[in-house]
């Protein structure tokens, strides 16, 4: 009951007119960036971060949370109407959704995606509210060696298990960890990888890295592939659903939620796996499995709910452990640190107002998304007509402004261009962005924990293994690395959803 009271308090502070306005702006902005392929919530939050320094932390997190949920929501619109998944988690939605749209059922596909997202997002957020405090209480007692192991676990999962190429994943991770190493050594004060440049001694601001990799890198990538034949967009009216659509949708919604949430909450990240699993499950369970591949509504409802539930699940490791598992979570974590908030197990105790207002505004934002966006679907489809030069000129402007605003230094703008070049290169060579950005964020955190553990053991390496939990997690890491390899040897190659977009959420 404690949780409920706290959540109601959160609602009380989230429902002020000002906070509601931030929430509305957030969901609209989020839908905007979600609809446009290539621009995701991670980029949007990174771009807005320097501009929100003047706000209260609570208000900017309400804004960011709105962007995050809005982005998930907008992605489905693009998948259904254009067959171009705005983000990798929408790939499965695109399969059936676009087929439905081609059969003239675009409105129903959009409606089931929207309502499914709402239900999954609401249940997911409530689960976050009820699980996180307990997990945080347990997490406070986790020692440094185990914490180090858990972080390693999440990096390994993101790098090796998700994504198509392990080698590319590890290259991305190595680049990220290297960027995270730049600066003064925490305990000895030795300068690392600064190349004698004084401005690098404080380390590289994560905002500059994120904006460079996401915004500048994407802009250069688009500039290199500017002219492409336009796609056929499917006209859409106001979304609505018939009684039959409802009865075919509600079970997939709930099953998708049940599949998606645990995957989001595990420090594994990625909505691709649960959306894929939900799609396969719905195809097996459906009485009309022959309709799959030709526009079955279950194939939209299930994966879309799984997508949003896992998006909500991401808040569990972020709020309870201070551990980001998606690119957007990584940027949110960076935002917390810029506000001087210490993420980690103590966050729930230190900043209860922030956390509960954030959770309440997630629920409000979800409702706003449904109320605002369902009638606006035709309008969002019009956004796809924005010419790329104008759009990316705007993004470049905000990116440079933001990078300069962090420390008011021209050096940061130069760094921004360097990371823009890195961002372009990793896209060119198909290196995933998620391990890279998580490496930048988690790397320094991991180092702190490792140093702590090694200091306690006077430098003996056994200090990293002296907790049962740590050993258990190392076993999991081993399993995560070995099992998929063995399985693929035994069973032969498994078909895997492939995304042609480099976007990450």
């Amino acid at each position, binding site marked *: 009951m404690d949780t409920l009271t706290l959540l109601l308090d959160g609602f009380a502070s989230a429902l002020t007119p000002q906070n509601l306005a931030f929430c509305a702006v957030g969901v609209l902005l989020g839908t905007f960036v979600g609809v*446009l*392929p290539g621009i995701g919530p991670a980029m949007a939050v990174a771009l807005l971060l320097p501009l929100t320094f003047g706000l209260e932390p609570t208000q900017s997190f309400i804004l960011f949370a709105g962007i995050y949920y809005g982005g998930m929501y907008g992605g489905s619109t693009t998948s259904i109407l*254009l067959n*171009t998944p705005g983000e990798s988690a929408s790939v499965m939605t695109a399969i059936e959704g676009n087929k439905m749209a081609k059969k003239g059922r675009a409105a129903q596909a959009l409606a089931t995606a929207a309502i499914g997202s709402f239900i999954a997002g609401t249940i997911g957020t409530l689960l976050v509210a009820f699980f996180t405090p307990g997990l945080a209480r347990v997490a406070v007692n986790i020692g440094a060696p185990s914490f180090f192991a858990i972080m390693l676990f999440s990096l390994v999962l993101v790098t090796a298990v998700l994504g198509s190429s392990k080698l590319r994943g590890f290259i991305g991770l190595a680049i990220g960890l290297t960027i995270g190493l730049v600066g003064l050594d925490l305990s000895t004060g030795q300068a690392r990888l600064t190349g004698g440049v004084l401005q690098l001694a404080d380390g590289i601001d994560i905002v500059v890295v994120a904006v460079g990799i996401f915004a500048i890198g994407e802009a250069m990538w688009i500039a290199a592939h*500017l*002219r*492409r*034949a*336009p*796609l*056929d*967009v499917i006209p859409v009216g106001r979304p609505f659903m018939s009684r039959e659509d409802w009865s075919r949708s509600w079970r997939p919604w709930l099953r998708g939620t049940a599949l998606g949430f645990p995957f989001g909450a595990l420090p594994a990240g990625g909505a691709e796996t649960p959306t894929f699993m939900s799609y396969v499950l719905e195809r097996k369970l459906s009485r009309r499995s022959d309709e799959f591949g030709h526009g079955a509504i279950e194939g939209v409802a299930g994966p879309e709910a799984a997508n949003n539930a896992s998006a909500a699940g991401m808040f569990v490791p972020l709020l309870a452990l201070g551990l980001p598992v998606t690119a957007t979570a990584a940027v949110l974590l960076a935002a917390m640190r810029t506000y001087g908030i210490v993420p980690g197990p103590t966050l729930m105790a230190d900043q209860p107002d922030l956390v509960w207002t954030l959770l309440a505004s997630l629920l409000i934002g979800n409702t706003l998304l449904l109320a605002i966006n369902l009638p606006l679907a035709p309008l969002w*489809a019009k956004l*796809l*007509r*924005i*010419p*790329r*030069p104008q759009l990316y000129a705007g993004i470049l402007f905000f990116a440079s402004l933001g990078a300069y605003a962090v420390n008011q230094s021209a050096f940061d703008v130069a760094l921004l261009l360097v990371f823009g070049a890195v961002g372009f290169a990793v896209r060119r060579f198909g290196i995933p962005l998620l391990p890279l950005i998580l490496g930048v964020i988690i790397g320094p955190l991991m180092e702190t924990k490792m140093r702590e553990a090694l200091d306690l053991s006077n430098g003996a390496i056994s200090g990293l293994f002296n907790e049962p939990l740590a050993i258990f997690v190392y076993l999991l890491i081993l399993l995560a690395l070995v099992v998929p390899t063995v399985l693929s040897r035994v069973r032969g190659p498994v078909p895997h959803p492939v995304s042609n977009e480099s976007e990450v959420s």
Partner: protein
Amino acid sequence: MAVVIGFIPDEYGEAALAYGLGEAQRRHTGVVIVNSTKGDALVDRRYLGEDDKVTLEEQLAASGVEHELRQTTGKDIADEILAVAKEVIADVIVIGIRHRTPVGKVIMGSVAQRVIIDATCPVIAVKPG
């Protein structure tokens, strides 16, 4: 030798198409329809999609004129029309023109104006209605 028609699926394109087909019948020649996009947006409703192409094809078949559709992508629509005109050694280019205020012309430019100025063959500018 052909009549080159700059076509987009709206009233201006339709006006140019109707006049161009008449012109081709008068000259006893075929038409080459040029439909171009800058290709810089995800969706360009001036670029013919599958359904639009079917409608256009029906219209062309009904006219009985020999016809060909060229869809091209390039940074300047006028250049695309002129390039096709040069390639097929056009007798005449038919384009639809719209009213633009002087300010509008500065901001939006004018494809029609550039076609008229740079073409090496006669250009017929048609208004709808």
